[in-house]
């Protein structure tokens, strides 16, 4: 289009009008930012792992019901370990356990009545005349023989082995109920401090763990790191902007768009009372990257226009820039929004849905600022040429800098062997499909933390030495009160426990059955052969009476409900990995269906392990669907934007290849498909499609509207759009690359995977799309005589071809 013809377009009139009121738009923009930002302080953080599940998720609802019935909590766990020959059964270590028990009872947020340790628990033993209930020690043992006696007593008490003491005697636990779970993190820190100050001797270690601690710590751990990483990402991107344009405005004005984008997305979240979830941390770099991308393309065009027509007024140059750029920017905005809308539609987890929704809002805000405030602001500034773009002696041309020349060279080499490129892409796609099928669905909460974190060490030690700290609860239900007393029902529970204890990673299980056996033994002179459930309903009822009579009123509530209709079997697993939990949950469910359930008794799985199993499974089941929906939405939007189904299809090719390649890389390097990585596909599609849209849009303009030859078009594509895309790519790849240096494993994974995805998208867009244009000559790019293979590949009918 000629200089004058441009001025006849509606776009010219719109942007001429916008640049007539630059200050108004800047003030309006600032007002919008302030308005949105004013909501931010009311933002609520929600770092619970339960937040990933919808509130009506059946597994979660059931877990909470069971938790309520049995008063189950997530306690704090302190482990004392001694590697010496006597383990913890020596005077020093037992004194340490005693000391810790006393000190923990003093801490805020600990109920002193609900601490369990060797120092608080009773030894129930049987002898000839009756039953003895007494502390393991009246005074702390002073000699090794006394400690040996304690060991003998503890080891003769099956309920405590694996739960309170390690089977080999090397460790023991102090378990403290937390009064207020919302302050669990403070308690965790208090316990760490106590562990540091404890009078431990050589060979003794103290570890602090517990689900309550993990949840609270996890949230703040990720937040703290993200708060360090996000500004660093912004800094890296600003440096790249400066390298690209070598002007202050080129480096700073895009940051204004970033501010607007982030403020509107996060402000809207706060305004609509949506919580800031752990995954929302990933939204910030996505928004920064997108906000900057629009600016990079505008500034590239702006400085190129200045270099070509140095005599034009700043306002004319800005308006001409926008006339060229509004279309690709709008298209990339719409396709990116379509991708995030797909995430919103297809995700099963509320935090991901909100991620999609507010990413859409942020992308919209970036667009709004890029087409109003940015041109307005630029028209106000005195225009100095960018050192990166110098006028050519030939009028109407710009000289390209080093990066432009690099891109030109890159373009030439790409187009040199187009069929080889296609073949490589095809092979990559095949490998990618194979890789995607090999992807392992897995998750484990503890891996969030670095290996040297005390919480990881504690978790490892406790899971190694004890039955395990990951609980599967099995709720046994009977129709009538006191039905649990029936010997046949207790026998079923006992059989269920013995089956489950054969499964891998199951350390042990506890139910009323174990208490009844212990009581039977104690009341029968402590004979080992009396460690069985008595076959007499009345005797069982009397044992329960005796138990309830000899304990706190609420002591037994974790095993059986108050009218003896429901019982809980708590299974301890020493692994929190989904793949391990899957085996146990599925086997237990099979057993319950085929062997346990009968008229008058049923069982249901519950507990953290069951919840994790169900939703990670659902994450896996819905992952491909959500990738498909995101791709479909992008395809639909691109098809509409280019008014061509073929163009839409070609647009999604690079991102499809990207997703496949990244899945293959993940499978090859053993990265799991997990909470963090399952989001990457939708984000990669949303971000990566921009490269394809810009490339195709520019090719379309050069080939169809400006009627240039293919070679001329390619020669123009690479140094201008190619160069802008290159910096767009650098900004995104390095911005997310910063996350890869995070100390948090899941942020590392997230950052490096998205950086990889952006890289693949960039190269496949700039390599594959020109090659497709050259080889297939699709009609939407203005080719009149598409080669025959076009029909084969894109299903264009003969009649359409001849039109």
């Amino acid at each position: 289009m000629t200089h004058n013809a441009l001025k006849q377009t509606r776009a010219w009139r719109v942007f001429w009008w916008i640049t007539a009121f630059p200050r108004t738009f800047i003030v309006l923009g600032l007002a919008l930012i302030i308005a949105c930002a004013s909501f931010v302080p009311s933002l609520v953080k929600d770092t619970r792992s339960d937040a990933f599940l919808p509130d009506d998720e059946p597994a979660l609802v059931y877990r909470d019901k069971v938790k309520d019935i049995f008063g189950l909590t997530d306690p704090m766990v302190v482990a004392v370990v001694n590697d010496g020959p006597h383990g913890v059964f020596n005077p020093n270590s037992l004194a340490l356990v005693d000391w810790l028990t006393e000190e923990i009872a003093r801490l805020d947020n600990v109920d002193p009545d609900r601490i369990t340790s060797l120092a608080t628990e009773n030894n129930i033993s049987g002898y000839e005349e009756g039953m003895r209930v007494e502390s393991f020690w009246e005074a702390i043992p002073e000699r090794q023989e006394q400690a040996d006696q304690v060991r003998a007593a503890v080891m003769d008490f099956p309920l405590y082995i694996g739960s309170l003491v390690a089977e080999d005697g090397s460790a023991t636990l102090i378990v403290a109920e937390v009064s207020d779970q919302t302050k669990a993190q403070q308690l965790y820190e208090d316990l760490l401090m106590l562990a540091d100050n404890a009078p431990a001797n050589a060979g003794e270690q103290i570890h602090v763990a517990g689900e309550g601690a993990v949840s609270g710590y996890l949230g703040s751990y990720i937040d703290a790191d993200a708060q360090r990483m996000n500004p660093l990402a912004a800094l890296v991107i600003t440096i790249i902007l400066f390298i690209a344009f070598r002007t202050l405005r080129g480096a700073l004005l895009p940051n204004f768009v970033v501010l607007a984008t982030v403020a509107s997305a996060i402000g809207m979240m706060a305004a609509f009372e949506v919580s800031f979830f752990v995954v929302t941390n990933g939204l910030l770099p996505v928004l920064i990257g997108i906000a900057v991308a629009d600016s990079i393309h505008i500034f590239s065009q702006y400085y190129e226009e200045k270099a070509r027509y140095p005599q034009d007024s700043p306002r004319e140059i800005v308006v001409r820039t926008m006339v060229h750029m509004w279309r690709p920017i709008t298209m990339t905005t719409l396709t990116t929004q379509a991708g995030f809308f797909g995430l919103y539609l297809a995700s099963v987890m509320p935090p991901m849905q909100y991620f999609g929704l507010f990413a859409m809002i942020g992308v919209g805000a970036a667009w709004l600022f890029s087409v109003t405030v940015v041109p307005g602001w630029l028209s106000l500034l005195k225009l100095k040429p960018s050192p990166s773009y110098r006028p050519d002696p030939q009028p109407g041309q710009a000289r390209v800098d080093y990066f432009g020349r690099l891109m030109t060279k890159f373009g030439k080499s790409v187009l040199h062997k187009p069929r080889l490129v296609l073949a490589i892409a095809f092979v990559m796609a095949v490998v990618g499909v194979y890789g995607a099928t090999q992807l392992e669905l897995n998750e484990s909460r503890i891996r969030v933390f670095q290996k040297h974190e005390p919480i990881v060490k504690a978790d490892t030690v406790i899971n190694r030495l004890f039955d395990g700290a990951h609980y599967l609860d099995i709720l046994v239900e009977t129709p009538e009160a006191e039905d649990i007393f029936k010997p046949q029902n207790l026998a079923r529970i006992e059989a269920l426990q013995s089956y489950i204890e054969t499964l891998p990673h199951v350390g042990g299980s506890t139910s009323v059955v174990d208490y009844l056996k212990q009581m039977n033994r104690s009341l029968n002179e402590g004979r080992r052969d009396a460690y069985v459930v008595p076959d007499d309903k009345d005797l069982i009822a009397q044992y329960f009476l005796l138990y309830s009579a000899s304990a706190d009123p609420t002591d037994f509530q974790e095993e059986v409900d108050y009218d003896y209709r429901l019982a809980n079997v708590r299974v301890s697993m020493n692994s929190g990995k989904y793949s391990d939990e899957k085996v146990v949950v599925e086997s237990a469910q099979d057993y319950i269906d085929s062997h346990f359930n009968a008229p008058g008794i049923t069982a249901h799985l519950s507990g953290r392990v069951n919840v994790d199993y169900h939703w990670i499974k659902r994450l896996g089941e819905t992952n491909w669907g959500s990738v498909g929906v995101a791709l479909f939405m992008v395809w639909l939007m691109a098809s509409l934007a280019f008014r061509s189904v073929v163009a839409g299809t070609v647009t999604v090719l690079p991102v499809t290849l990207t997703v496949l390649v990244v899945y293959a890389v993940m499978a090859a390097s053993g990265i799991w498909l997990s909470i963090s990585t399952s989001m990457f596909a939708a984000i990669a599609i949303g971000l990566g499609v921009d490269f394809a849209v810009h490339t195709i849009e520019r090719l379309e303009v050069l080939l169809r509207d400006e009627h240039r030859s293919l070679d001329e078009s390619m020669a123009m594509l690479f140094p201008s759009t190619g160069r802008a895309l290159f910096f767009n790519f650098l900004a995104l790849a390095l911005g997310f690359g910063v996350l890869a240096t995070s100390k948090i494993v899941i942020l590392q994974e997230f950052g490096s995977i998205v950086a990889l995805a952006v890289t693949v998208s960039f190269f496949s867009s700039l390599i594959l799309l020109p090659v497709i244009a050259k080889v297939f000559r699709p009609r939407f790019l203005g080719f009149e005589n598409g080669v025959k293979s076009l029909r084969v590949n894109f299903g264009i009918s003969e009649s359409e071809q001849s039109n």
Partner: protein
Amino acid sequence: MLSLTRQILTGTLLIPVLLIPTISVAFELPDGDEVARRINARDEGVAVARNLTMQMTDRRGKTRTRETRAFRKYYGEEKKTVIFYLEPSNVRDTAFLTWDYPNADKDDDQWLYLPAMRKVRRISASDRGDYFLGTDLTYEDIKLETRIGLEDYTRKTLGEDEVDGHHCYLLESVPVDEKTAKELGYGRVEQCVDSKIWMVRRAKFWDIKGKQLKTSHFREIRQVQGIWTQHRIEVENHKTGHNTLFIFSDIDYQHGVDDELFTQTALRRGL
């Protein structure tokens, strides 16, 4: 461990000495020790037979009800108690027998009879702070009934109050030391003591960390055979949401209680 009888004896012996200052400062509040002395000076009867219904409700509103017949008798400084379960039917004839000794060094003796086992088993003594038969009252609460452990607490009168329409003195008791507090499970006790009949009508308990633990109400206090007797105890545990209701009926102080009842043979034979 404290002996009730000894308290009564010492209390009784001290009455003439302490009565004089009380009368002379009639318009001032009696001090803590005076209130305690008055409480402990009450007649409790040497022996008592009564029905006791124990109703326990958990925080979800589910209830367990136990019907029992209970006997208690003082043998000088020694106290013997036996409880026979009547209901529910599957625990009928289950029985607990306890001999409390005044000497703190000597552990109490306790026996249990489980009818389905047909055996009497000796069970070890409970600690004072342990809960009594799954209720919200501790063994010490039961042992003292409404009395005051003189040696365990220091006390003062905080003021006056009214409970169920009766004027009372507010008596605050604080365990003498941390060890005692831990044994008892209480960091502080605040009792509302009827100023006419010297019966505790309400008691509030705090745990050793100063958190409110439970509140007891002693109701339907009337004379039975000349002895002021509570017929209803309501205890609400604020920490667990659990609560307990004791209902006493068929109370008899007069007809004596057969010594034979407090033996293992009686346990086995049942009522």
